[in-house]
């Protein structure tokens, strides 16, 4: 009897192992272009917005390592920042309660794959709207205007983007638009890319590079964390942030845009902006 039970569980394990192994090892075939398979399909039946409403929870991909926008506080374990407050406000406008929300950590490298894998409903993570990205995802209206800038150690000879020349080591983050921008503006500089902003900032502090480049909004957060570093020069690009959603979810995009418009007209947007950025939005 015992033997029989054992052989049955044996078989079950073999099967599950095979399934797992086959997926892990051989999934290259039959999938073709991973991009079109995940990004292009439009699910028949219920839209994502309906699904969000029926599960009564909004799942948002945010940064956990970016001060002012999305930073996990070791003391409380909570994630806090501008993007988080926007996410909560949207949960309130879509589901009626700002606490009906789940935050998942994304990095610039992982956010689009995670969105296309349906792990998150939307990305609110300092994400610039670009034409290339529009082919992958749908964006909401602009909810924040940033511009790429430079962060250096105080007293650095680099004071603007003109000083970034051959021999300058520029630190950036994998998958961010700032990498392409700086390569275009300063093609002679060496660009080193890291997993996330924490690693890049730690690398700057460790002297692994001369300058860190990304959106000024994120750099100001780093400045707030460590006063030995400063943002220099004028922003040299426009980085309009948008909320990214899976392609074809028109109803969700509309709901998000309505939510954003309501936030702006009620003045709540300005409150959130001032709370994190320290000044009223220009315009």
């Amino acid at each position, binding site marked *: 009897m015992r033997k029989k039970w054992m052989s049955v569980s044996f078989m079950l394990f073999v099967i599950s192992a095979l399934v797992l192994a086959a997926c892990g090892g051989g999934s290259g075939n039959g999938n073709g272009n991973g991009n079109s398979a995940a990004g292009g399909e439009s699910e028949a039946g219920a839209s994502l917005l309906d699904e969000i409403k029926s599960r009564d929870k909004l799942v948002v991909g945010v940064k956990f390592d970016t001060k002012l926008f999305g930073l996990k506080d070791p003391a409380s374990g909570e994630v806090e920042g501008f993007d988080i407050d926007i996410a909560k406000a949207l949960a309130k406008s879509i589901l009626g309660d700002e606490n009906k929300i789940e935050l998942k950590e994304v990095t610039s490298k992982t956010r689009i794959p995670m969105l296309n894998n349906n792990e998150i409903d939307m990305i609110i993570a300092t994400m610039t709207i670009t034409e290339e990205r529009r082919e992958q995802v749908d964006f909401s209206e602009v909810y924040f205007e940033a511009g790429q800038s430079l962060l250096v150690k105080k007293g650095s000879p680099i004071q603007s983007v003109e000083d970034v020349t051959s021999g300058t080591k520029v630190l950036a983050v*994998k998958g961010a638009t700032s990498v392409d921008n700086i390569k275009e503006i300063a093609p002679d500089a060496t660009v080193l890319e890291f997993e996330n902003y924490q690693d890049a900032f730690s690398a700057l502090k*460790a002297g692994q590079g001369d300058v860190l480049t990304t959106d000024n909004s994120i750099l100001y957060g780093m400045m707030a964390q460590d006063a030995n570093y400063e943002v220099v020069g004028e922003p040299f690009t426009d980085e309009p942030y948008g909320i990214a959603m899976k392609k074809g979810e028109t109803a969700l995009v509309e709901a998000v845009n309505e939510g954003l418009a309501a936030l702006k007209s009620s003045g709540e947007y300005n409150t959130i902006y001032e709370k994190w950025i320290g000044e009223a939005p220009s315009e």
Partner: protein
Amino acid sequence: MPDFSILTENFDIYLHGFRNTILASVIALLGSFAIGTVIAVFRITPIRPLRWAGAMYVEFIRNIPLLLVVFVFFYGLPSLGITLSGFVCGTLGLMIYTASFIAEAIRAGIMSVPKGQLEAAQASGLTYVQAMRYVVLPQAIKIVIPPLSNQSLNLIKNSSILGVFAGLDLMYFGDQIASRTYVTFDTYIFVALFYLVLTLPLSYMARQLERKLAKSG
């Protein structure tokens, strides 16, 4: 089928990373054999402080992750005024880390030859070096080769850690291609193929060698 245009359009980038992966692996391998042999000798000498130093090195390094070792080199050393690039830190980390395993393998190989044989060889007129050369080492090598080839393979696979520290290796450029093309899946399939081109023949050769040694013994 994966999208081969990813491979053809980015071939130079893949190749650049592949070359650096090989370079880092070869340097780290040579270094770790050298350090590992020295530590192994430390561990079997009659001099007690050296034995302790050897044991501490092996026990400590073996029991912490490689990621941490490289992390210390990359982010920690600069606070002592030494700044090395991601490639150098990754290669050094691989070297130091793998050396602890190689030291253990070599030590175990030498210890596996009964002491009596060394004594007998010396008693029959061979010098210590001759006894080592003709009696102990030929036997030890048979035991040492399988774990050593295993460690070499591990080192090649572990070299992917350079990617986390902007070490310009295959993994690093794979990430770069993936985030530029947005074709995550296929990009990494080709990264995997590049690694397999390196590791599969080596692991086959290692197995053949092992079989040969087993037969001759």
